[in-house]
């Protein structure tokens, strides 16, 4: 049975399933589901500590947002530990993290965003109007619609999972609020000035120390 756990073929699928549960909050990923689909010949009492070890490794890597040097050092240390991982398993984990790091990090960032986010933005500019009584009764205005809503702390339905799980629609994003604002030219320029201040602050922040 230990030989089956050391096999690298299902490990990639296991990591996908663990990521679905740990980072994407998919509700259907149970220990038994993972075992039955990926390691059907391994008894649950052997599978349980194995998947816990892989889950712990994946969470450590994600929590530290390891770059590839850190990842290599970390995985090498894991191969030297008593009850650690094999070098083949380390290679599978490394490949997995390299492919999915960006998506997992994005999910972790979303989980830490508790205020509403800007989901969408639409706008139009209405031009001058005239009437038979006055030359110009409207100045140009911009009308902007902001879609604001909580992204939800968990996402679902990432297509790259290699196991079949029931899709739960109840974790779909919460409803948005639509905020419709009108701006005249003066107001547009006032906001633009503020946005340029933000941009300047971002540039200062991003400058290498």
């Amino acid at each position, binding site marked *: 049975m230990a030989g089956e756990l050391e096999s690298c073929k299902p490990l990639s699928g296991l990591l996908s399933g663990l990521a679905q549960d740990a980072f994407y909050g998919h509700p259907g990923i149970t220990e038994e589901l993972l075992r039955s689909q990926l390691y059907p010949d391994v008894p649950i009492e052997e599978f349980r500590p194995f998947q816990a070890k892989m889950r712990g490794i994946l969470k450590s890597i*994600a*929590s530290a947002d390891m770059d590839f040097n850190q990842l290599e050092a970390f995985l090498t240390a894991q191969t030297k530990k008593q009850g650690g991982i094999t070098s083949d398993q380390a290679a599978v984990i490394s490949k997995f993290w390299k492919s999915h790091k960006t998506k997992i990090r994005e999910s972790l960032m979303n989980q830490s965003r508790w205020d509403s*986010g800007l989901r969408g933005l639409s706008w139009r500019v209405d031009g001058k*109007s005239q009437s038979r009584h006055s030359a110009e009764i409207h100045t140009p205005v*911009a*009308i902007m619609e902001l879609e604001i809503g909580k992204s939800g702390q968990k996402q679902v339905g990432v297509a790259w999972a290699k196991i079949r799980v029931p899709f739960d629609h109840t974790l779909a994003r919460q409803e948005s609020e639509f905020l419709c604002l*009108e701006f005249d030219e003066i107001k547009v320029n006032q906001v*633009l000035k503020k946005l340029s201040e933000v941009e300047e*602050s971002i540039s200062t922040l991003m400058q290498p120390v």
Partner: protein
Amino acid sequence: MLVSGFRSRTVVRKELEWFPCVPPSSVKMLIDFQWKLGMAVSSDSCRSLKYPYVAVMLKVADHSGQVKNKSFEMTIPQFQNFYRQFKEIAAIIETV
């Protein structure tokens, strides 16, 4: 569109599927725009977050004069898109 001697012209509509006729009662006026540039350093789910974000607080008034605060966050790429769109609006409104 000619209605009772009035003539108005919509210059640019962005997002072709956007509903073109917004009821006046739903349109609000922006009174104040406050911003904050933050950096999320760490969280319980990720010890090394290190992601910057822009938090915005809008003070808006509806047609009855009632004032409300609306806040939201943007990632840096979202902010840059927001800024770019505003620059587009400014360029167009200047020529109208």
